[in-house]
Protein backbone atom coordinates (compact mmCIF):
# COMPACT_ATOMS: atom_id res chain seq x y z
CA UNK A 1 0.00 0.00 0.00
CA UNK A 2 0.91 3.47 -0.35
CA UNK A 3 1.58 5.71 2.48
CA UNK A 4 1.15 9.22 1.26
CA UNK A 5 3.08 12.33 1.19
CA UNK A 6 5.22 13.90 3.84
CA UNK A 7 6.19 17.32 4.85
CA UNK A 8 9.83 17.57 3.99
CA UNK A 9 10.78 20.26 6.45
CA UNK A 10 9.25 18.47 9.40
CA UNK A 11 10.70 15.15 8.32
CA UNK A 12 14.12 16.66 7.95
CA UNK A 13 13.92 18.33 11.30
CA UNK A 14 12.76 15.15 12.91
CA UNK A 15 15.55 13.17 11.31
CA UNK A 16 18.13 15.58 12.64
CA UNK A 17 16.37 15.87 15.93
CA UNK A 18 16.20 19.63 15.59
CA UNK A 19 12.46 19.79 16.00
CA UNK A 20 12.67 20.34 19.74
CA UNK A 21 14.43 23.27 21.28
CA UNK A 22 17.58 22.38 23.19
CA UNK A 23 16.67 21.02 26.61
CA UNK A 24 17.10 23.57 29.37
CA UNK A 25 19.62 22.71 32.02
CA UNK A 26 17.40 23.28 34.95
CA UNK A 27 14.86 20.54 35.57
CA UNK A 28 11.44 21.67 34.56
CA UNK A 29 8.37 19.95 35.83
CA UNK A 30 6.45 18.23 33.08
CA UNK A 31 3.05 19.80 32.76
CA UNK A 32 -0.03 17.62 32.41
CA UNK A 33 1.75 14.26 32.78
CA UNK A 34 -1.56 12.45 33.14
CA UNK A 35 -2.91 13.79 29.87
CA UNK A 36 0.30 12.95 28.03
CA UNK A 37 0.14 9.36 29.19
CA UNK A 38 -3.55 9.12 28.35
CA UNK A 39 -2.91 10.43 24.82
CA UNK A 40 0.28 8.56 23.98
CA UNK A 41 -0.18 5.24 25.78
CA UNK A 42 -3.01 3.69 23.69
CA UNK A 43 -1.22 4.17 20.39
CA UNK A 44 2.15 3.48 21.97
CA UNK A 45 1.07 0.17 23.40
CA UNK A 46 -0.50 -1.06 20.17
CA UNK A 47 2.47 0.18 18.13
CA UNK A 48 4.73 -1.79 20.43
CA UNK A 49 2.60 -4.92 20.23
CA UNK A 50 1.83 -4.92 16.51
CA UNK A 51 4.88 -3.19 15.02
CA UNK A 52 7.96 -3.41 17.19
CA UNK A 53 7.44 -6.82 18.78
CA UNK A 54 6.67 -8.50 15.40
CA UNK A 55 9.82 -7.00 13.88
CA UNK A 56 11.89 -8.28 16.79
CA UNK A 57 10.14 -11.63 16.69
CA UNK A 58 10.79 -12.04 12.95
CA UNK A 59 14.49 -11.45 13.53
CA UNK A 60 14.48 -13.87 16.46
CA UNK A 61 12.67 -16.58 14.49
CA UNK A 62 15.06 -16.16 11.58
CA UNK A 63 17.94 -17.10 13.86
CA UNK A 64 16.43 -20.46 14.83
CA UNK A 65 16.65 -23.84 13.15
CA UNK A 66 14.41 -26.85 13.64
CA UNK A 67 16.06 -30.02 14.84
CA UNK A 68 14.40 -33.41 14.90
CA UNK A 69 15.34 -36.55 16.69
CA UNK A 70 15.23 -39.05 13.86
CA UNK A 71 12.81 -38.66 10.97
CA UNK A 72 9.60 -38.62 12.99
CA UNK A 73 10.92 -37.35 16.30
CA UNK A 74 9.68 -34.27 18.08
CA UNK A 75 10.85 -31.06 16.48
CA UNK A 76 12.65 -28.53 18.63
CA UNK A 77 13.78 -25.07 17.69
CA UNK A 78 17.38 -24.33 18.56
CA UNK A 79 19.59 -21.32 17.95
CA UNK A 80 21.15 -21.67 14.53
CA UNK A 81 22.95 -18.37 14.04
CA UNK A 82 22.83 -17.23 10.46
CA UNK A 83 21.96 -20.68 9.07
CA UNK A 84 18.64 -19.47 7.66
CA UNK A 85 20.32 -16.51 5.99
CA UNK A 86 22.78 -18.84 4.30
CA UNK A 87 19.75 -20.75 2.98
CA UNK A 88 18.13 -17.50 1.84
CA UNK A 89 21.17 -16.64 -0.26
CA UNK A 90 21.20 -20.12 -1.80
CA UNK A 91 17.51 -20.06 -2.55
CA UNK A 92 17.16 -19.69 -6.28
CA UNK A 93 13.37 -19.27 -6.31
CA UNK A 94 13.56 -16.32 -3.94
CA UNK A 95 16.23 -14.47 -5.91
CA UNK A 96 14.47 -15.22 -9.18
CA UNK A 97 11.37 -13.59 -7.73
CA UNK A 98 13.37 -10.58 -6.52
CA UNK A 99 14.97 -10.25 -9.96
CA UNK A 100 11.57 -10.51 -11.62
CA UNK A 101 10.27 -7.66 -9.47
CA UNK A 102 13.32 -5.53 -10.31
CA UNK A 103 12.67 -5.99 -14.03
CA UNK A 104 9.00 -5.23 -13.37
CA UNK A 105 9.85 -2.08 -11.44
CA UNK A 106 12.41 -0.77 -13.94
CA UNK A 107 9.75 -0.87 -16.67
CA UNK A 108 6.47 -0.29 -14.85
CA UNK A 109 7.40 2.49 -12.42
CA UNK A 110 8.74 4.92 -15.09
CA UNK A 111 5.74 4.24 -17.34
CA UNK A 112 3.26 4.75 -14.51
CA UNK A 113 4.93 7.90 -13.19
CA UNK A 114 5.49 9.24 -16.70
CA UNK A 115 1.78 8.92 -17.41
CA UNK A 116 0.89 10.38 -14.02
CA UNK A 117 3.16 13.35 -14.68
CA UNK A 118 1.77 13.86 -18.18
CA UNK A 119 -1.82 13.84 -16.90
CA UNK A 120 -0.99 16.15 -14.00
CA UNK A 121 0.68 18.61 -16.37
CA UNK A 122 -2.27 18.51 -18.75
CA UNK A 123 -4.68 19.08 -15.85
CA UNK A 124 -2.56 22.03 -14.80
CA UNK A 125 -2.33 23.52 -18.29
CA UNK A 126 -4.90 25.79 -19.95
CA UNK A 127 -5.20 23.24 -22.77
CA UNK A 128 -7.94 21.11 -21.23
CA UNK A 129 -11.63 21.47 -20.68
CA UNK A 130 -13.59 19.30 -18.25
CA UNK A 131 -10.70 19.01 -15.82
CA UNK A 132 -12.87 17.96 -12.93
CA UNK A 133 -14.26 15.05 -14.93
CA UNK A 134 -10.83 13.82 -15.98
CA UNK A 135 -9.47 14.13 -12.47
CA UNK A 136 -12.27 11.98 -11.10
CA UNK A 137 -12.32 9.47 -13.96
CA UNK A 138 -8.58 8.84 -13.64
CA UNK A 139 -8.76 8.55 -9.87
CA UNK A 140 -11.67 6.10 -9.75
CA UNK A 141 -9.50 2.98 -10.32
CA UNK A 142 -7.65 3.77 -7.09
CA UNK A 143 -10.90 2.99 -5.26
CA UNK A 144 -10.80 -0.52 -6.74
CA UNK A 145 -8.90 -2.93 -4.46
CA UNK A 146 -5.95 -4.72 -6.07
CA UNK A 147 -7.72 -8.07 -5.79
CA UNK A 148 -10.82 -6.83 -7.61
CA UNK A 149 -8.76 -5.01 -10.24
CA UNK A 150 -6.79 -8.18 -10.89
CA UNK A 151 -9.99 -10.24 -11.19
CA UNK A 152 -11.45 -7.74 -13.67
CA UNK A 153 -8.35 -7.60 -15.83
CA UNK A 154 -8.01 -11.36 -15.62
CA UNK A 155 -11.35 -11.61 -17.41
CA UNK A 156 -10.45 -8.81 -19.83
CA UNK A 157 -7.25 -10.63 -20.80
CA UNK A 158 -8.80 -14.05 -21.12
CA UNK A 159 -8.94 -15.48 -24.66
CA UNK A 160 -12.59 -16.59 -24.40
CA UNK A 161 -14.40 -14.13 -22.17
CA UNK A 162 -12.72 -10.85 -23.03
CA UNK A 163 -14.64 -8.08 -24.79
CA UNK A 164 -11.51 -7.73 -26.91
CA UNK A 165 -11.36 -11.28 -28.16
CA UNK A 166 -10.01 -10.27 -31.56
CA UNK A 167 -6.92 -9.15 -29.69
CA UNK A 168 -6.73 -11.67 -26.85
CA UNK A 169 -7.17 -14.62 -29.22
CA UNK A 170 -4.15 -13.40 -31.22
CA UNK A 171 -1.93 -12.35 -28.31
CA UNK A 172 -1.90 -14.52 -25.20
CA UNK A 173 -1.60 -11.93 -22.44
CA UNK A 174 -1.61 -14.71 -19.84
CA UNK A 175 1.34 -16.63 -21.31
CA UNK A 176 4.63 -17.02 -19.48
CA UNK A 177 6.18 -14.30 -21.65
CA UNK A 178 3.52 -11.68 -21.18
CA UNK A 179 1.78 -12.29 -17.87
CA UNK A 180 4.27 -10.18 -15.93
CA UNK A 181 3.36 -7.20 -18.13
CA UNK A 182 -0.32 -7.96 -17.80
CA UNK A 183 0.11 -7.71 -14.04
CA UNK A 184 2.08 -4.50 -14.58
CA UNK A 185 -0.91 -3.17 -16.48
CA UNK A 186 -3.20 -3.91 -13.52
CA UNK A 187 -0.91 -2.07 -11.11
CA UNK A 188 -0.57 0.85 -13.52
CA UNK A 189 -4.32 1.03 -14.01
CA UNK A 190 -4.93 1.26 -10.27
CA UNK A 191 -2.16 3.69 -9.31
CA UNK A 192 -1.71 6.19 -12.15
CA UNK A 193 -4.57 8.38 -10.90
CA UNK A 194 -3.32 8.35 -7.33
CA UNK A 195 0.16 9.41 -8.36
CA UNK A 196 -1.34 11.95 -10.74
CA UNK A 197 -3.18 13.59 -7.83
CA UNK A 198 -0.03 13.83 -5.72
CA UNK A 199 1.89 15.47 -8.55
CA UNK A 200 -1.07 17.67 -9.42
CA UNK A 201 -1.35 18.85 -5.80
CA UNK A 202 2.23 19.99 -5.88
CA UNK A 203 1.73 21.71 -9.25
CA UNK A 204 -1.16 23.67 -7.76
CA UNK A 205 1.16 24.94 -5.07
CA UNK A 206 3.43 26.70 -7.56
CA UNK A 207 2.59 30.42 -7.49
CA UNK A 208 1.33 31.70 -10.83
CA UNK A 209 3.80 34.62 -10.88
CA UNK A 210 6.55 32.15 -11.62
CA UNK A 211 5.07 31.55 -15.06
CA UNK A 212 4.47 35.18 -15.92
CA UNK A 213 7.94 35.94 -17.14
CA UNK A 214 7.93 32.82 -19.25
CA UNK A 215 4.57 33.65 -20.76
CA UNK A 216 5.70 37.18 -21.57
CA UNK A 217 8.72 35.68 -23.24
CA UNK A 218 6.37 33.67 -25.39
CA UNK A 219 7.16 30.25 -24.00
CA UNK A 220 4.51 27.66 -24.93
CA UNK A 221 2.89 25.24 -22.51
CA UNK A 222 5.31 22.46 -23.41
CA UNK A 223 8.27 24.68 -22.70
CA UNK A 224 6.81 25.90 -19.40
CA UNK A 225 6.09 22.33 -18.36
CA UNK A 226 9.56 21.11 -19.21
CA UNK A 227 11.61 24.02 -17.88
CA UNK A 228 9.59 25.20 -14.91
CA UNK A 229 6.96 22.77 -13.74
CA UNK A 230 8.84 19.48 -13.90
CA UNK A 231 11.88 20.76 -11.97
CA UNK A 232 9.55 22.18 -9.32
CA UNK A 233 7.59 18.96 -8.80
CA UNK A 234 10.75 16.87 -8.57
CA UNK A 235 10.22 16.25 -4.85
CA UNK A 236 6.75 14.86 -5.49
CA UNK A 237 8.11 12.69 -8.31
CA UNK A 238 10.87 11.29 -6.13
CA UNK A 239 8.39 10.56 -3.37
CA UNK A 240 5.96 8.75 -5.65
CA UNK A 241 8.90 6.83 -7.14
CA UNK A 242 10.01 5.61 -3.73
CA UNK A 243 6.54 4.49 -2.76
CA UNK A 244 6.24 2.73 -6.10
CA UNK A 245 9.56 0.93 -5.61
CA UNK A 246 8.46 -0.21 -2.14
CA UNK A 247 5.08 -1.30 -3.54
CA UNK A 248 6.71 -3.26 -6.36
CA UNK A 249 8.88 -5.33 -4.05
CA UNK A 250 5.84 -6.04 -1.86
CA UNK A 251 3.60 -7.16 -4.73
CA UNK A 252 1.29 -9.98 -3.68
CA UNK A 253 -2.45 -9.69 -4.27
CA UNK A 254 -2.44 -9.11 -8.04
CA UNK A 255 -0.13 -12.01 -9.00
CA UNK A 256 -1.82 -14.26 -6.45
CA UNK A 257 -5.17 -13.59 -8.16
CA UNK A 258 -3.61 -14.15 -11.58
CA UNK A 259 -2.69 -17.67 -10.57
CA UNK A 260 -6.27 -18.70 -11.30
CA UNK A 261 -6.07 -17.17 -14.79
CA UNK A 262 -2.58 -18.24 -15.79
CA UNK A 263 -0.54 -21.30 -14.91
CA UNK A 264 2.58 -19.25 -15.69
CA UNK A 265 2.29 -17.52 -12.31
CA UNK A 266 3.99 -19.91 -9.92
CA UNK A 267 3.61 -20.04 -6.15
CA UNK A 268 6.97 -18.25 -5.82
CA UNK A 269 6.35 -15.61 -8.48
CA UNK A 270 7.05 -12.61 -6.22
CA UNK A 271 9.11 -12.36 -3.01
CA UNK A 272 6.00 -12.09 -0.83
CA UNK A 273 4.46 -15.10 -2.54
CA UNK A 274 7.69 -17.00 -1.79
CA UNK A 275 7.42 -15.96 1.85
CA UNK A 276 3.81 -17.12 2.02
CA UNK A 277 4.55 -20.42 0.27
CA UNK A 278 7.52 -21.07 2.56
CA UNK A 279 5.55 -20.28 5.70
CA UNK A 280 2.78 -22.66 4.72
CA UNK A 281 5.15 -25.60 4.14
CA UNK A 282 5.58 -24.82 7.13
CA UNK A 283 9.12 -23.54 7.34
CA UNK A 284 8.56 -20.44 9.42
CA UNK A 285 12.19 -19.82 10.27
CA UNK A 286 13.24 -19.62 6.64
CA UNK A 287 10.14 -17.54 5.86
CA UNK A 288 11.07 -15.14 8.68
CA UNK A 289 14.57 -14.82 7.24
CA UNK A 290 13.05 -14.06 3.81
CA UNK A 291 10.91 -11.36 5.42
CA UNK A 292 13.89 -9.74 7.09
CA UNK A 293 15.97 -9.83 3.90
CA UNK A 294 13.10 -8.42 1.84
CA UNK A 295 12.49 -5.58 4.27
CA UNK A 296 16.22 -4.75 4.27
CA UNK A 297 16.38 -4.95 0.47
CA UNK A 298 13.46 -2.54 0.27
CA UNK A 299 15.21 -0.08 2.58
CA UNK A 300 18.48 -0.34 0.66
CA UNK A 301 16.77 0.19 -2.68
CA UNK A 302 14.75 3.20 -1.50
CA UNK A 303 17.78 4.83 0.06
CA UNK A 304 19.99 4.14 -2.95
CA UNK A 305 17.37 5.75 -5.16
CA UNK A 306 17.18 8.72 -2.82
CA UNK A 307 20.95 9.07 -2.85
CA UNK A 308 21.20 9.00 -6.62
CA UNK A 309 18.44 11.53 -7.12
CA UNK A 310 19.81 13.79 -4.42
CA UNK A 311 23.29 13.75 -5.95
CA UNK A 312 21.79 14.71 -9.29
CA UNK A 313 19.85 17.53 -7.69
CA UNK A 314 23.03 18.90 -6.17
CA UNK A 315 25.11 18.52 -9.30
Amino acid at each position, binding site marked *: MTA*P*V*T*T*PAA*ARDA*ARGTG*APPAPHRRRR*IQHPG*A*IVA*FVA*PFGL*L*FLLFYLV*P*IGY*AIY*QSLLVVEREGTYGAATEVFGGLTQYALVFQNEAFWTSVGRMLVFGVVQVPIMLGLAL*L*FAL*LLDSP*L*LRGKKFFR*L*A*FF*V*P*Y*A*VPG*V*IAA*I*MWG*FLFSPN*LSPFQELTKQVDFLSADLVLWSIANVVTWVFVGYNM*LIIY*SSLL*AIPAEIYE*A*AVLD*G*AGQGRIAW*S*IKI*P*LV*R*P*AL*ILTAIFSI*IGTLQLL*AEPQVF*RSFSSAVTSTYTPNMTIYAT*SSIPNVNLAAAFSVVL*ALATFVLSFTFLRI*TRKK*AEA
Partner: protein
Amino acid sequence: MSAVIDTEAAHGSIGSDVPAGRSRRGAAPAGRRPKERFIPRAGAMLVMGVFTLYFLVPIWWLVVASTKDRADFLGTNPLWFADFAFFDNVAALFAYRDGVYLRWLLNSVLYAGFGALVATLLAAMCGYALAKYRFPGREAIFNVVLGGVLVPATALALPLFLLFSRVQLTDTFWSVFLPSVVSPFGVYLTRVFAEASVPDELLEASRLDGAGEVRTFFTVSIRLMFPALVTVFLFQFVAIWNNFFLPLIMLRSEELFPVTFGLYAWNSSINQFPELRSFVLVGALLSIIPLIVTFLLLQRYWRTGLGTGALK
Protein backbone atom coordinates in the same frame (compact mmCIF):
# COMPACT_ATOMS: atom_id res chain seq x y z
CA MET B 1 11.12 10.26 5.98
CA SER B 2 13.36 12.69 4.28
CA ALA B 3 12.20 11.55 0.89
CA VAL B 4 11.67 15.02 -0.33
CA ILE B 5 14.39 17.15 -1.75
CA ASP B 6 14.78 20.85 -1.33
CA THR B 7 13.39 22.79 -4.20
CA GLU B 8 15.91 25.60 -3.86
CA ALA B 9 18.23 24.02 -6.40
CA ALA B 10 15.41 23.76 -8.88
CA HIS B 11 14.37 27.35 -8.29
CA GLY B 12 17.86 28.50 -9.10
CA SER B 13 17.90 27.08 -12.59
CA ILE B 14 14.64 28.51 -13.84
CA GLY B 15 15.77 31.98 -14.69
CA SER B 16 18.49 30.78 -17.00
CA ASP B 17 16.33 28.26 -18.84
CA VAL B 18 13.25 30.11 -19.81
CA PRO B 19 14.44 32.86 -22.13
CA ALA B 20 15.79 30.21 -24.48
CA GLY B 21 12.21 29.35 -25.39
CA ARG B 22 11.57 32.80 -26.75
CA SER B 23 11.93 32.15 -30.41
CA ARG B 24 10.02 28.91 -30.64
CA ARG B 25 6.41 29.98 -30.58
CA GLY B 26 6.79 33.66 -31.35
CA ALA B 27 5.96 36.40 -28.88
CA ALA B 28 2.49 36.50 -27.41
CA PRO B 29 0.48 39.65 -27.92
CA ALA B 30 1.21 41.81 -24.93
CA GLY B 31 -1.47 42.52 -22.36
CA ARG B 32 -3.61 39.40 -22.66
CA ARG B 33 -3.19 35.69 -22.18
CA PRO B 34 -1.95 34.01 -25.29
CA LYS B 35 -4.60 31.87 -26.85
CA GLU B 36 -3.49 28.27 -27.02
CA ARG B 37 -3.28 26.89 -30.47
CA PHE B 38 -5.75 24.37 -31.78
CA ILE B 39 -3.36 21.45 -32.27
CA PRO B 40 -1.99 21.33 -28.72
CA ARG B 41 -5.52 21.65 -27.36
CA ALA B 42 -6.88 18.86 -29.54
CA GLY B 43 -3.86 16.71 -28.76
CA ALA B 44 -4.37 17.16 -25.03
CA MET B 45 -8.07 16.31 -25.26
CA LEU B 46 -7.28 13.28 -27.41
CA VAL B 47 -4.73 11.91 -24.92
CA MET B 48 -7.09 12.44 -22.00
CA GLY B 49 -10.01 10.96 -23.94
CA VAL B 50 -8.14 7.80 -24.86
CA PHE B 51 -7.02 7.28 -21.28
CA THR B 52 -10.50 7.96 -19.95
CA LEU B 53 -11.52 4.91 -21.97
CA TYR B 54 -8.60 2.94 -20.56
CA PHE B 55 -9.58 3.79 -16.99
CA LEU B 56 -13.34 3.47 -17.28
CA VAL B 57 -13.95 0.67 -19.81
CA PRO B 58 -12.99 -2.11 -17.35
CA ILE B 59 -15.49 -0.74 -14.83
CA TRP B 60 -18.10 -0.31 -17.55
CA TRP B 61 -17.51 -3.94 -18.57
CA LEU B 62 -18.00 -5.04 -14.97
CA VAL B 63 -21.26 -3.10 -14.73
CA VAL B 64 -22.55 -4.63 -17.97
CA ALA B 65 -21.40 -8.14 -17.06
CA SER B 66 -23.18 -8.03 -13.73
CA THR B 67 -26.51 -7.37 -15.44
CA LYS B 68 -26.38 -10.54 -17.55
CA ASP B 69 -27.34 -14.12 -16.92
CA ARG B 70 -24.85 -16.80 -17.77
CA ALA B 71 -25.99 -17.43 -21.34
CA ASP B 72 -25.95 -13.73 -22.21
CA PHE B 73 -22.56 -13.27 -20.54
CA LEU B 74 -21.07 -15.73 -23.00
CA GLY B 75 -23.26 -15.02 -26.00
CA THR B 76 -23.80 -11.26 -26.26
CA ASN B 77 -21.65 -8.18 -26.75
CA PRO B 78 -19.65 -7.88 -23.51
CA LEU B 79 -19.71 -4.09 -23.61
CA TRP B 80 -23.45 -3.64 -24.04
CA PHE B 81 -26.55 -4.71 -22.14
CA ALA B 82 -28.73 -7.70 -22.97
CA ASP B 83 -31.66 -8.91 -20.85
CA PHE B 84 -31.46 -7.06 -17.58
CA ALA B 85 -30.82 -9.71 -14.92
CA PHE B 86 -28.95 -7.59 -12.40
CA PHE B 87 -31.45 -7.99 -9.57
CA ASP B 88 -31.74 -11.73 -10.16
CA ASN B 89 -27.95 -11.94 -9.98
CA VAL B 90 -27.84 -9.93 -6.77
CA ALA B 91 -30.59 -12.05 -5.21
CA ALA B 92 -28.74 -15.23 -6.17
CA LEU B 93 -25.50 -13.81 -4.77
CA PHE B 94 -27.13 -12.86 -1.46
CA ALA B 95 -28.80 -16.25 -1.18
CA TYR B 96 -25.69 -18.29 -1.99
CA ARG B 97 -24.50 -20.33 0.99
CA ASP B 98 -26.81 -18.58 3.45
CA GLY B 99 -25.70 -15.12 2.47
CA VAL B 100 -22.01 -15.52 3.14
CA TYR B 101 -21.34 -12.59 0.80
CA LEU B 102 -23.31 -10.20 3.02
CA ARG B 103 -21.36 -11.52 5.94
CA TRP B 104 -18.13 -10.64 4.12
CA LEU B 105 -19.35 -7.15 3.35
CA LEU B 106 -20.22 -6.66 6.99
CA ASN B 107 -16.79 -7.97 8.00
CA SER B 108 -15.08 -5.52 5.65
CA VAL B 109 -17.11 -2.65 7.03
CA LEU B 110 -16.08 -3.69 10.54
CA TYR B 111 -12.41 -4.28 9.72
CA ALA B 112 -12.01 -1.18 7.56
CA GLY B 113 -14.66 1.23 8.85
CA PHE B 114 -14.42 0.56 12.55
CA GLY B 115 -10.69 -0.21 12.34
CA ALA B 116 -9.89 3.03 10.53
CA LEU B 117 -12.02 4.98 12.99
CA VAL B 118 -10.16 3.57 15.98
CA ALA B 119 -6.82 4.00 14.18
CA THR B 120 -7.59 7.63 13.43
CA LEU B 121 -8.57 8.38 17.01
CA LEU B 122 -5.49 6.70 18.49
CA ALA B 123 -3.17 8.37 15.98
CA ALA B 124 -4.77 11.77 16.55
CA MET B 125 -4.35 11.55 20.32
CA CYS B 126 -0.72 10.54 20.01
CA GLY B 127 0.12 13.03 17.26
CA TYR B 128 -1.60 15.79 19.21
CA ALA B 129 0.35 15.00 22.38
CA LEU B 130 3.61 14.93 20.43
CA ALA B 131 2.79 18.32 18.95
CA LYS B 132 1.38 20.16 21.94
CA TYR B 133 3.19 18.91 25.05
CA ARG B 134 6.84 18.98 25.98
CA PHE B 135 8.16 15.90 27.67
CA PRO B 136 11.39 13.90 27.64
CA GLY B 137 11.52 11.23 24.96
CA ARG B 138 9.11 13.09 22.72
CA GLU B 139 11.41 13.25 19.71
CA ALA B 140 12.59 9.70 20.28
CA ILE B 141 9.02 8.42 20.18
CA PHE B 142 8.32 10.45 17.07
CA ASN B 143 11.39 9.14 15.28
CA VAL B 144 10.55 5.53 16.06
CA VAL B 145 7.02 6.06 14.77
CA LEU B 146 8.44 7.74 11.67
CA GLY B 147 10.56 4.64 11.09
CA GLY B 148 7.34 2.64 11.36
CA VAL B 149 5.93 4.54 8.38
CA LEU B 150 8.68 3.01 6.26
CA VAL B 151 8.02 -0.59 7.32
CA PRO B 152 5.90 -2.17 4.59
CA ALA B 153 2.74 -3.70 5.99
CA THR B 154 3.40 -7.00 4.25
CA ALA B 155 6.71 -7.37 6.09
CA LEU B 156 4.71 -7.55 9.32
CA ALA B 157 2.15 -10.12 8.20
CA LEU B 158 4.28 -13.21 8.76
CA PRO B 159 5.66 -12.28 12.21
CA LEU B 160 2.18 -11.19 13.27
CA PHE B 161 0.92 -14.60 12.25
CA LEU B 162 3.66 -16.31 14.26
CA LEU B 163 2.88 -14.19 17.32
CA PHE B 164 -0.86 -14.68 17.08
CA SER B 165 -0.43 -18.43 16.72
CA ARG B 166 1.62 -18.41 19.93
CA VAL B 167 -1.40 -17.11 21.81
CA GLN B 168 -3.82 -19.14 19.68
CA LEU B 169 -5.55 -16.12 18.23
CA THR B 170 -5.07 -16.82 14.53
CA ASP B 171 -8.28 -17.27 12.57
CA THR B 172 -10.14 -14.81 14.78
CA PHE B 173 -11.66 -11.43 14.08
CA TRP B 174 -9.02 -9.81 16.29
CA SER B 175 -6.12 -11.26 14.34
CA VAL B 176 -7.03 -9.01 11.40
CA PHE B 177 -8.63 -6.17 13.32
CA LEU B 178 -6.03 -5.38 15.98
CA PRO B 179 -2.97 -4.92 13.71
CA SER B 180 -5.12 -2.64 11.52
CA VAL B 181 -5.73 -0.01 14.18
CA VAL B 182 -2.08 1.07 14.27
CA SER B 183 -1.29 3.89 11.85
CA PRO B 184 2.20 5.41 12.24
CA PHE B 185 1.51 7.58 9.23
CA GLY B 186 -1.54 8.90 11.04
CA VAL B 187 0.59 9.96 14.01
CA TYR B 188 2.99 11.68 11.67
CA LEU B 189 0.30 13.57 9.78
CA THR B 190 -1.75 14.57 12.82
CA ARG B 191 1.37 15.83 14.58
CA VAL B 192 2.36 18.00 11.65
CA PHE B 193 -1.20 19.22 11.31
CA ALA B 194 -1.75 19.89 15.03
CA GLU B 195 1.45 21.92 15.18
CA ALA B 196 0.20 24.11 12.37
CA SER B 197 -3.48 24.41 13.18
CA VAL B 198 -4.04 24.16 16.93
CA PRO B 199 -2.85 27.43 18.50
CA ASP B 200 -1.33 27.26 21.99
CA GLU B 201 -3.28 30.37 22.99
CA LEU B 202 -6.53 28.53 22.42
CA LEU B 203 -5.44 25.69 24.69
CA GLU B 204 -4.41 28.18 27.36
CA ALA B 205 -7.78 29.88 27.13
CA SER B 206 -9.50 26.54 27.48
CA ARG B 207 -7.38 25.77 30.53
CA LEU B 208 -8.26 29.11 32.10
CA ASP B 209 -11.90 28.19 31.59
CA GLY B 210 -11.20 25.17 33.72
CA ALA B 211 -11.56 22.51 31.04
CA GLY B 212 -9.38 19.43 31.50
CA GLU B 213 -6.78 18.46 28.91
CA VAL B 214 -8.71 15.48 27.61
CA ARG B 215 -11.92 17.46 27.38
CA THR B 216 -10.16 20.28 25.55
CA PHE B 217 -8.85 17.75 23.04
CA PHE B 218 -12.26 16.26 22.32
CA THR B 219 -14.17 19.53 22.21
CA VAL B 220 -11.71 22.01 20.70
CA SER B 221 -8.60 20.49 19.20
CA ILE B 222 -10.19 17.61 17.37
CA ARG B 223 -12.35 20.02 15.38
CA LEU B 224 -9.36 22.04 14.29
CA MET B 225 -7.63 18.84 13.21
CA PHE B 226 -10.62 17.57 11.27
CA PRO B 227 -9.22 17.75 7.69
CA ALA B 228 -6.16 15.78 8.77
CA LEU B 229 -8.36 13.25 10.52
CA VAL B 230 -10.41 12.65 7.39
CA THR B 231 -7.21 12.07 5.43
CA VAL B 232 -5.86 9.63 7.98
CA PHE B 233 -9.21 7.84 8.09
CA LEU B 234 -9.33 7.51 4.31
CA PHE B 235 -5.79 6.24 3.96
CA GLN B 236 -6.25 3.74 6.73
CA PHE B 237 -9.66 2.69 5.42
CA VAL B 238 -8.20 1.98 1.98
CA ALA B 239 -5.19 0.22 3.47
CA ILE B 240 -7.36 -2.12 5.56
CA TRP B 241 -9.97 -2.68 2.83
CA ASN B 242 -7.18 -3.63 0.39
CA ASN B 243 -5.12 -5.62 2.85
CA PHE B 244 -4.56 -9.04 1.41
CA PHE B 245 -1.59 -10.66 3.12
CA LEU B 246 -3.01 -10.46 6.63
CA PRO B 247 -6.32 -12.26 5.91
CA LEU B 248 -4.49 -14.66 3.60
CA ILE B 249 -2.13 -15.76 6.34
CA MET B 250 -4.43 -15.42 9.37
CA LEU B 251 -7.88 -16.59 8.35
CA ARG B 252 -9.16 -20.05 7.55
CA SER B 253 -12.85 -19.71 8.46
CA GLU B 254 -14.97 -18.40 5.64
CA GLU B 255 -17.27 -16.45 7.97
CA LEU B 256 -14.39 -14.17 9.02
CA PHE B 257 -13.23 -13.19 5.51
CA PRO B 258 -13.30 -9.58 4.39
CA VAL B 259 -15.08 -9.20 1.08
CA THR B 260 -12.01 -8.82 -1.14
CA PHE B 261 -10.52 -11.96 0.29
CA GLY B 262 -13.78 -13.87 -0.06
CA LEU B 263 -14.00 -12.86 -3.70
CA TYR B 264 -10.42 -13.97 -4.17
CA ALA B 265 -11.29 -17.35 -2.69
CA TRP B 266 -14.30 -17.73 -5.01
CA ASN B 267 -12.31 -16.59 -8.02
CA SER B 268 -9.66 -19.20 -7.23
CA SER B 269 -12.21 -21.99 -7.45
CA ILE B 270 -14.05 -20.82 -10.57
CA ASN B 271 -12.46 -23.62 -12.55
CA GLN B 272 -14.12 -26.26 -10.36
CA PHE B 273 -17.37 -24.34 -9.81
CA PRO B 274 -18.18 -22.26 -12.91
CA GLU B 275 -21.42 -20.96 -11.34
CA LEU B 276 -19.24 -18.84 -9.07
CA ARG B 277 -18.24 -16.63 -11.99
CA SER B 278 -21.41 -14.59 -11.90
CA PHE B 279 -21.14 -14.25 -8.11
CA VAL B 280 -17.56 -13.03 -8.38
CA LEU B 281 -18.47 -10.36 -10.93
CA VAL B 282 -21.62 -9.09 -9.23
CA GLY B 283 -19.91 -9.28 -5.85
CA ALA B 284 -16.90 -7.34 -7.15
CA LEU B 285 -19.15 -4.58 -8.47
CA LEU B 286 -21.18 -4.31 -5.26
CA SER B 287 -18.02 -4.21 -3.18
CA ILE B 288 -16.44 -1.29 -5.04
CA ILE B 289 -19.54 0.92 -5.22
CA PRO B 290 -19.35 2.01 -1.55
CA LEU B 291 -15.65 2.74 -1.97
CA ILE B 292 -16.13 4.87 -5.06
CA VAL B 293 -18.99 6.77 -3.43
CA THR B 294 -16.95 7.39 -0.26
CA PHE B 295 -14.03 8.61 -2.34
CA LEU B 296 -16.10 11.00 -4.36
CA LEU B 297 -17.88 12.37 -1.29
CA LEU B 298 -14.71 12.89 0.68
CA GLN B 299 -12.41 13.93 -2.13
CA ARG B 300 -12.38 17.54 -1.03
CA TYR B 301 -10.80 16.53 2.25
CA TRP B 302 -8.67 13.98 0.49
CA ARG B 303 -7.05 16.66 -1.62
CA THR B 304 -6.59 18.96 1.33
CA GLY B 305 -4.79 16.16 3.11
CA LEU B 306 -2.56 15.32 0.18
CA GLY B 307 -1.82 19.02 0.03
CA THR B 308 -0.84 19.19 3.68
CA GLY B 309 1.76 16.58 3.02
CA ALA B 310 3.01 17.43 -0.39
CA LEU B 311 3.24 21.14 -0.50
CA LYS B 312 5.45 22.29 2.29
